[in-house]
């Protein structure tokens, strides 16, 4: 299957695009100029990384990790206030090292990273930040949040037209077993179809692509967004992409992050009060859904399971890297995560994302 870069005929990538950026203003000018031209060019990729760290401490964080320090060399250079240039080099024991140039725009509680390297090379950044958990983490955007994003985009484009397509995985129930199929929901009714699919069974939205067209039916913006908050600008003005589209994505992430801050165990008048986080589904879970859950969770969590295999699943789990601990309860169609003594937003993002990637996407209620 072709990736977007290959689709647009980009084989030799223009790695110098990022190195030509000297300031935030330069970035706006250069990317706006480049991505409104109809010519072969690398897609602009942007990653939303949840962190509270100072970018200058990134290389120190990598060096502290023995395994990562052997594989990666990271340098960060400040261009202007809260705007940095990032250079990551991944050593390859059997071939030449691969280097990635990127730009970091620091926002409250997150970084937006831009790069124009190929998707394959951009994955070096994804894998680096994934290994730096819990200092860094990715958001998980589910179908409800993506639909909310499409609504916001529609409001913004006013009289224009938004054509969306969703690449989803949907679970279908046959006489014998449950199977998962990949589908693409396209056209003007894609959102309605997505809602219908979500009501029918469990779904996972892998990618959202939307094209914004103006009154004259001319393409204004063409972007792709994955459920891990990785966006690609195929065509369009960078100002629209960043100040409109990306701002909505950041808003949605920040909104949920704010809600996660309320998920804590507190003491009110001498009694422990817990504020749990729930994920609500349209249908109840089956034994088959829960059986695989334990084996998929134990790679990152210290688990003690009390009830498993019937519609009532109950377990205590501790995030091995972050130290946060939770009680996980699944009963009928609701997953409930109750905080214990230590609970961080980072650990909650990870757990909610992990549960949704295993059991399907639901509505997050706090």
């Amino acid at each position, binding site marked *: 299957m072709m990736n977007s870069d290959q689709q647009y005929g980009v084989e030799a990538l223009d790695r110098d695009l990022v190195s030509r950026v000297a300031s935030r203003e330069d970035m706006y000018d250069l990317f706006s100029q480049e991505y409104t031209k109809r010519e072969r060019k690398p897609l602009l990729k942007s990653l939303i990384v949840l962190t509270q760290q100072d970018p200058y401490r990134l290389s120190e964080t990598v060096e502290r990790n023995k395994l990562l320090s052997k594989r990666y060399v990271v340098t960060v250079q400040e261009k202007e206030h809260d705007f940095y240039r990032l250079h990551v080099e991944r050593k390859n024991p059997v071939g030449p090292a691969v280097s990635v140039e990127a730009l970091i725009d620091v926002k409250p509680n997150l970084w937006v990273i831009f790069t124009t390297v190929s998707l394959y090379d951009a994955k070096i950044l994804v894998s680096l930040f994934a290994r730096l958990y819990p200092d860094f983490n990715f958001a998980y955007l589910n179908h409800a949040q993506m639909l909310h994003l499409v609504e916001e985009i529609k409001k913004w484009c006013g009289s224009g037209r938004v054509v969306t397509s969703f690449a989803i995985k949907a679970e279908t129930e046959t006489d014998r077993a449950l199977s998962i199929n990949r589908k693409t929901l396209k056209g003007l009714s894609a959102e309605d179809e997505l809602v219908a699919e979500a009501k029918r069974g469990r779904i996972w939205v892998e990618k959202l692509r939307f094209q914004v067209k103006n009154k004259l039916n001319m393409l204004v913006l063409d972007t792709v967004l994955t459920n891990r908050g990785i966006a690609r600008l195929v065509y369009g003005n960078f100002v629209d992409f960043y100040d409109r589209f990306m701002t909505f994505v950041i808003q949605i992430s920040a909104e949920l992050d704010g809600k996660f801050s309320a998920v804590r165990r507190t*003491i009110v008048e001498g009694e422990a009060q817990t504020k*749990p986080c729930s994920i609500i589904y349209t249908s109840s879970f089956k034994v088959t859904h829960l059986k695989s859950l334990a084996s998929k969770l134990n790679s990152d969590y210290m688990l*003690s399971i009390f009830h498993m295999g*019937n519609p*009532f699943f109950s377990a205590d789990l501790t995030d091995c890297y972050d*130290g946060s601990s939770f009680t996980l309860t699944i009963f009928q169609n609701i997953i409930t995560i109750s905080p214990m*003594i230590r609970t961080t937003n980072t650990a909650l993002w990870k757990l909610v994302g992990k549960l949704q990637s295993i059991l399907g996407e639901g509505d997050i209620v706090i």
Partner: protein
Amino acid sequence: MSALPKYGSIQECVEDFIKYRDTTRVLSALREYLNQRIFGRLIGVEHTFKLEDGTGITPDLTLAYENDSACCFIELKWRISQSSIKNELLDLKRYFNARQSLNGSSQKVTHNDIIMICHINDSNVVIDAVNELAGTPDVGFLKQEGVAIWSWYLGIPKGADTDANPEMRFGWLYGKTRNLELEKKIRMPGGIVIPASIAFSPTDRYLFTKDKPPVHYAMAFLLQHILSSFQDSTHRSQVIPLSLGMVDELYEKSKIFFPGWRDAESETIQARKEWIREAVDLIIQLKIKVSVPLPRTRKTIQQVLCARLERLRQKSRGAGPRVRKLRVRPDTMSAKLSTWFNSKT
């Protein structure tokens, strides 16, 4: 050195762990259920009443009824063995005969009811013991009105489909209380079924009961919820220096999971610290390194702890080194040949 738990098998050890946790869930659910003011006014969980002779009683749950003129004490048991049943029954006598006052008033209650709730698997042990002991003068009070024994059960009903909803149920075993509403409810066919919204409420209020937990339960609790919270981002990959001197600090962190922790008496606090001390001692003995990241295991934490405790017990008894069993896949040619050879000889 702390005493190591004795179990017939690892499975038994794991079952005990789950049974204790289920009991804490039952305690939380029962508190919510009784707080609905159908059967009376809930005084509290592990509320201590001072008696005239200077002693005190701390039942698991206390319910006042008949305009606070009578009390119904509930004692929830996670495990009852044949060796401990007589003492458990004798303890009930103190509750039954006590005459305490409520809310600091000088007026004393006219009578106390006492309900002992044991796990359904222990019901035979309890009933046999009651029938045997009821005639003796020490426990003759068991024949009186106001003493009852119930059973608790949490799980899928027997014979139901695997996809059936689990339930939390209390059943009548023996005796009678003077709380008419409670008595009417428990004598209904099937007993008292706690509504699913309460029984499977995701927010567990307590992780302990008044009874001592199995040591591996306390160890898992410390590892999962308390020691894990000691880490901070600046001290990654460092081992937390665990010692018996940390017991007070660990208790302070974990006390909110104990029922009635606010009004706990010094003796109760000391007993709870002793549970923690024992668990810390065994974590040190098992050489479990508490570091960042925490150790991950393919099996659940209770299975790992049970297996390691069993190994430590065998080692302390002087058993030789663990011999790894050679596993032969049954479908391999060598296995077939050896089966054939064995059948010939």
